[in-house]
């Protein structure tokens, strides 16, 4: 049986891993590659490295960080997001150490580039990242660069329906950083019908995570802050969910096996 996934999220800003609160305030945590190494050791199902200031500063992808993570020999699938501008960026990010990519800004600025990346990497490798909220009962997308919420255009919805991307990561950006305030109504939005969803932002409480993952259209929950500083955080989260739709918690002790013996 295909298991649902718990994705560990490392948010990076100014070269440092940070705790993020509501897309507006940040607390530094340390070197991103150290957090990635922890999440790998603690058995995340995937790890999202989300570099949030690369697109706004027009810096392109953080290849230096991707290279550092590749050098660690991480054994968990890596999703990279941040600064991807075109098909070459997407291909290079995967070549240099990621296994999937997450795109946000490009969805709105260059849908042609999204299609070209999909033509080269396959749609299974692409996740669309969407910060969402309801404003006056209307589902709106939050543009983190302009800091404004706007309606989701029919063009974007059509893009999802053509399956150019495989999954949508819907971020409850207003509740990001909270433990348990993820707005379940986002999952039920008619605009998202037919898409596989990854839920992020306010799902750090396992009871909320379980509630979210019981929806058929949800394939994963993504957790940031709560997984950043507690040893064995993922195993504990998984244990508390105690759900048969997850794989059993995994833990690697580097001392148990020497691959080169």
């Amino acid at each position, binding site marked *: 049986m295909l*298991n649902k996934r718990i994705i560990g999220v490392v948010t990076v800003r100014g070269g440092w891993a940070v705790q993020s609160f509501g897309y507006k305030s940040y607390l530094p945590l340390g070197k991103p590659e150290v957090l990635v190494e922890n999440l790998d050791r603690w058995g995340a199902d995937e790890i999202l490295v989300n570099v949030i200031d690369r697109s706004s500063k027009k810096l392109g992808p953080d290849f230096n960080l991707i290279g550092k993570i590749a050098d660690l020999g991480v054994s968990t699938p890596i999703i990279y997001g941040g600064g991807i501008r075109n098909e070459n960026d997407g291909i290079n990010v995967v070549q240099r150490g990621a296994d999937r990519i997450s795109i946000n800004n490009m969805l709105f600025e260059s849908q042609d580039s999204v299609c070209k990346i999909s033509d080269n990497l396959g749609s299974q490798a692409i996740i669309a990242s969407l910060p969402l909220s309801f404003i006056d009962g209307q589902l709106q997308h939050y543009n983190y660069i302009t800091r404004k919420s706007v309606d989701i255009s029919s063009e974007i919805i059509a893009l999802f329906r053509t399956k150019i991307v495989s999954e949508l990561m819907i971020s409850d950006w207003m509740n990001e950083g909270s433990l348990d305030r993820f707005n379940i109504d986002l999952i039920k939005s008619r605009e998202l019908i037919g898409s596989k969803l990854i839920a992020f932002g306010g799902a750090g409480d396992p009871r909320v995570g379980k509630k979210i993952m019981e929806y058929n259209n949800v394939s994963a929950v993504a957790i940031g802050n709560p997984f950043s500083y507690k040893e064995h955080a993922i195993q504990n989260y998984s244990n508390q969910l105690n759900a048969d739709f997850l794989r059993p918690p995994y833990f690697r002790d580097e001392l148990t096996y020497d*691959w080169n013996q």
Partner: protein
Amino acid sequence: MRKVSIGIVDSGIGNVSSLYSALSILGYSVRVTDDPSLLDLVDIMALPGVGAFPAVMKIYDSNGISDYIKSAADKDRPIIGICLGMQLLTDSSEESNSFKGLGLIPGKVVRISNSRWHIGWNTLKSSGQSEFLKSDMGSTVYFNHGFQYQGDLDYHVAVVDYFDEIPAIIKYRNLIGFQFHPEKSQDAGRYILQNTIEELMNAK
């Protein structure tokens, strides 16, 4: 003792760094190249995953790598294909009207039925046809694909349950295909890579 050497066949598309790191950590001598004179020197070739079938076959066909891989397979040199790399070893894919596969493993690649993609962790079951990698059955490994192998059951080593059964490991002569990503399946995947390489080397 001489290290086993592995050549990752580089098309310019694919998660070559992930595969390179995993194989290096396992202690193998690894190079990433599309140069036949360097691939001649390695014990085992590996075709990496992550990519679209037509995009990578177009590159393989245009730079002569397709012919080189076919000729290597004719000489029974061992080849491992991972995810898309496995699909390229077959005759054809529904993902591409323009490009045929390498035609080395009889069978074709078709769209997964009942779902557009199979993404996440799933548990290997023996197909009952093969003793290959018997000790790794029951392992939970990472998949990320929208197409699957369809061919003779004799070539199935392992399958996973997803609506119907999806072939997860296939074997034909010295050609091994993984539909999942052993390089990104934590310890379970590393054991599978190590056991596969050992078995291929023992068979030489």
